[in-house]
């Protein structure tokens, strides 16, 4: 029996007509708005009018037309889609956590502050960094925070006027150049070397007294470890610049090495990747930022500190960049990451990394006979193959895969590999599933191109007209 996704001709909720059934307490009909001037009152409010049971059925049917990590392998490269533990789901529902208002006094939130304090300590331990903020709300938001710290650091040294550039490798995540530009820096892109790592000569040529920072991820987006990292750190620091670690690929090195040991000054974590908080179809994420001691004073306020066994919101950072989000971070996600780390411990976290890297190398090996896998063969958490030379487009193979009921890898990224498929299996996939995935990908090569173009056929919809979506732009119902 081939795979079939649930398929409904599901209407938009605005097309449903069963009438609202919601009741609120008390007698709202007695309410008078007469003290307010007419010009400020709403005349007309159009929203769907649907019964509660129909709303539940509607979104349940929609949910069935959606793949998820609970259904199987989700090997999007650099996304680290590992199993999200149900333990963390359960903890996040405790009213003692979910029912807490952010403006409550410290005395009443000792439990939440303790969770945050412990998470800060864990992340510092894991990264060998000295101080940390949990406030950033996603990886890119962590980058934004980190680059604001870069700005403030150079400003504090009276150097900001000339330090106008941030260097970024051509294999970097798109968020890196976007974050640098958002904070007012010019982006200098450097090419990767022949083995896929940073081209040291290109880096030397790019570094100057104008350099504010160098942003990299290690391992990089090709899944290759930057083995010259200590030399890179020295070059960057000798130039008076800071070294920024994009933590998207942290799952590849946890317990083996750390950004602190490698010489990084600033690092962001993606709790929704390395620490398995659920990604909710696009978010929420959580992107804590850790720094070395010399940057501690620049962190956003507040952080959580402890004195005499009492936890408190610490606003003492003298050169703080200020605030980057409404409150103290995505607490519910912080709580889940805390649960994950508590459960696994240092030994489990390290084992997860070993398994994730073993799985990626295993897949790489299995696929290397049929696909070109450029650069160095030894991978870390992910591999990037090219479908060039197979006569097939990466996109078509991706559609074949999803038609078999597994999620496709990231396609067409990193930009430096043509017809790229970026595959990150993570540690939470069995050998049987890895074998199955590899087999499907190999089988896809045998399917005629014409046939591939007709895929997917087993999902709730067939291949989409993406050009039409942009051309006849319709981003709301009428």
């Amino acid at each position, binding site marked *: 029996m081939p795979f079939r*996704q649930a398929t409904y001709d599901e209407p938009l909720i605005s097309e449903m007509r069963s009438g*609202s059934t*919601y009741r609120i*307490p008390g007698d709202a009909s007695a309410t008078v708005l007469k003290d307010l001037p007419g010009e400020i*009152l709403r005349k007309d409010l159009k*929203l*769907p009018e649907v019964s509660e049971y129909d709303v539940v059925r509607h979104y349940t049917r929609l949910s069935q037309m959606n793949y998820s990590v609970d259904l199987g392998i989700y090997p999007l490269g650099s996304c680290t889609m590992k199993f999200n533990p149900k333990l963390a789901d359960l*903890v996040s529902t*405790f*009213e*003692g956590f979910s*029912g807490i208002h952010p403006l409550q006094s410290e005395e009443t*939130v*000792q*439990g*939440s502050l303790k*969770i945050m304090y412990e998470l800060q300590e864990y992340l510092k331990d894991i990264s060998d960094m000295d101080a940390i903020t949990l406030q950033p*709300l*996603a*990886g890119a*938001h962590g*980058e*934004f925070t980190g680059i604001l710290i870069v700005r403030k650091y150079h400003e504090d040294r009276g150097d900001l006027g000339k330090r106008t550039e941030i260097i970024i490798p051509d294999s970097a*995540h*798109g*968020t890196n150049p*976007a974050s640098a530009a958002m904070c007012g820096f010019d982006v200098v892109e450097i090419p990767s070397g022949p083995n896929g790592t940073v081209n040291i000569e290109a880096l030397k040529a790019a570094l100057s007294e104008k350099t504010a920072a160098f942003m990299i991820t290690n391992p990089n987006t090709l899944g290759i470890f930057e*083995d010259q990292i200590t030399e890179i750190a020295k070059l960057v620091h000798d130039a008076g610049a800071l070294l920024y670690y994009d933590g998207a690929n942290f799952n590849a090195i946890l317990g*083996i090495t750390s950004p602190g040991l490698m010489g990084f000054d600033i690092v962001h974590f993606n709790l929704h990747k390395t620490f398995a908080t659920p*990604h*909710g*179809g*696009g978010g929420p994420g959580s992107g804590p930022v850790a720094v070395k001691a010399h940057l501690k004073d620049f962190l*956003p306020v507040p952080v959580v500190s402890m004195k005499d066994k009492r936890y408190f919101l610490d606003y003492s950072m003298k050169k703080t*960049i*200020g605030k980057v989000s*409404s*409150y*103290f971070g*995505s607490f*519910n*996600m*912080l*709580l889940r990451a805390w649960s994950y780390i*508590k459960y696994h*411990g240092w030994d489990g976290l390290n*084992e997860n990394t070993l398994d994730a890297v*073993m799985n990626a190398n295993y897949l790489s*090996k299995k696929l290397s006979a049929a696909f070109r896998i450029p650069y160095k063969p*030894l991978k870390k958490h992910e591999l990037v193959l090219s479908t060039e030379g197979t006569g097939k487009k990466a996109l078509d193979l991706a*559609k074949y895969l999803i038609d078999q009921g597994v999620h496709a890898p990231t396609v067409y990224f990193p930009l430096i590999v043509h017809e790229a498929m970026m595959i990150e299996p993570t540690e939470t996939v069995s*050998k049987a599933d890895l074998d199955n995935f590899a087999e499907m990908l190999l089988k896809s090569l045998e399917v005629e191109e014409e046939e591939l173009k007709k895929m*997917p056929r087993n999902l*709730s919809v*067939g*291949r*989409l007209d993406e050009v039409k979506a*942009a051309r006849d732009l319709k*981003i*709301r119902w009428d």
Partner: protein
Amino acid sequence: MSINKDQTEMLNLLGVKYKLELFSDVPKSVRKSSFRMNRGISEHEVLLEARSNAALNRGPEMLNFLGNGIYDRIIPASVDSIVGRTEFLTSYTPYQAEMSQGVLQSLFEYQSMMCQLTGMDVTNSSMYDGYTALGEAVRMAYRINGKTELLVPECMYDGKLQVIKSYLEGLPVKIKKYAMDAGTGFMNLDDLKSRVNGNTCAIICEMPNGLGIIDQNITKVQEIKGEALLIAYVDPISLGILRAPGEYNADIAVAEGQQLGIHMSYGGPLLGILSFKRDYIRKSPGRLIGETVDVNGKRAFVMTLQTREQHIRREKAMSNICTNQALMAITAAAYLGIVGPDGLRKIGSLTYKNANDLGNKLRGTKSAAKDQLTGKSFSDVLIRFNSDQGNLQEKLLRKEVLGGISLAGICAPVEKTFPHSHFFSVTEKTTAAEIEKLAGILEGI
């Protein structure tokens, strides 16, 4: 390190004996040798520890008059049930659209409902939270007109202003404040008008404003804004009874969406709602979900206009945002779907009524000042006392009451204009008995 039979086979294929051999590319000099944290423990033990930590928190059992942006509103049980579906919870960004129609259609519905609620043309599929969405809105305004002065109300919360400042680092935009009227609590239109000039990029108006007041002057800003953009920061629940920003010609509308079915969770995750006029789509940050058809002509949904975004445009992108708050957007859609237009109107009305009742009651207590703001509150009721109340929040806490946030504590610059003032916030949950009890406690302090 554990190795099972499957793993032995895998390692054999890789030609290594131990997993650690796969890290031969990591130099010895940077190898990690120790941790301070403990080894892993069982699920049961984590649960016990989490429970004991939750028990250190207090609040849900108390009378709650906290608000100022985050509210303890009623969340229909069905909302948690819907967003607890792991197909929503454990999926990634819908890069493979054909496999992800559930998330995509839900987000399209969110965008549509938010447009109906705000009266705006377009809503993106979510930002991190209200404050960061406001920061992005200001950046967007700068991209649209290139002007360099931002006008904000003097009663904007310090935290909100700090986030805007962070988002303006690197742009040549300067922040200037306009005054509030000390009698009504409305924005001072004359003062605002005197500050608008050819360099004005945007005017931020809050509704209700930072004093909690339903600011009827907001409808008149369109007459004085000139070429500047009007950015309205609104309370989404208030839109059940108050005019939509689209109706007073707002160019960009921003809101914190937590009240739409999202638990408070000590302030996160939240939901940033960002809506705007259609002309500004190409300058807007974040993801947009569009309708299209599949090969068979069936209606379907897909991420669109991605050429504005970081994964394609890199340093030229409209924003660096990638991960957003998709699940919170679906939460808001489910909430509004269940509550419906009549429900939202009632929730808004009841909130307003409770605010009125609480205001009338507390202003009649002996410690209340004679002169109070004459403008009407929506949910955050600002009470002026006739003397310094010290740490009122602390005193109330001893009576098992949360509330009494001081204006000076969240908006220091207006402390002098509005002295000895504290907030008490209500929702549709608040009862007459609770208001009565609060008044009694305040009389006794």
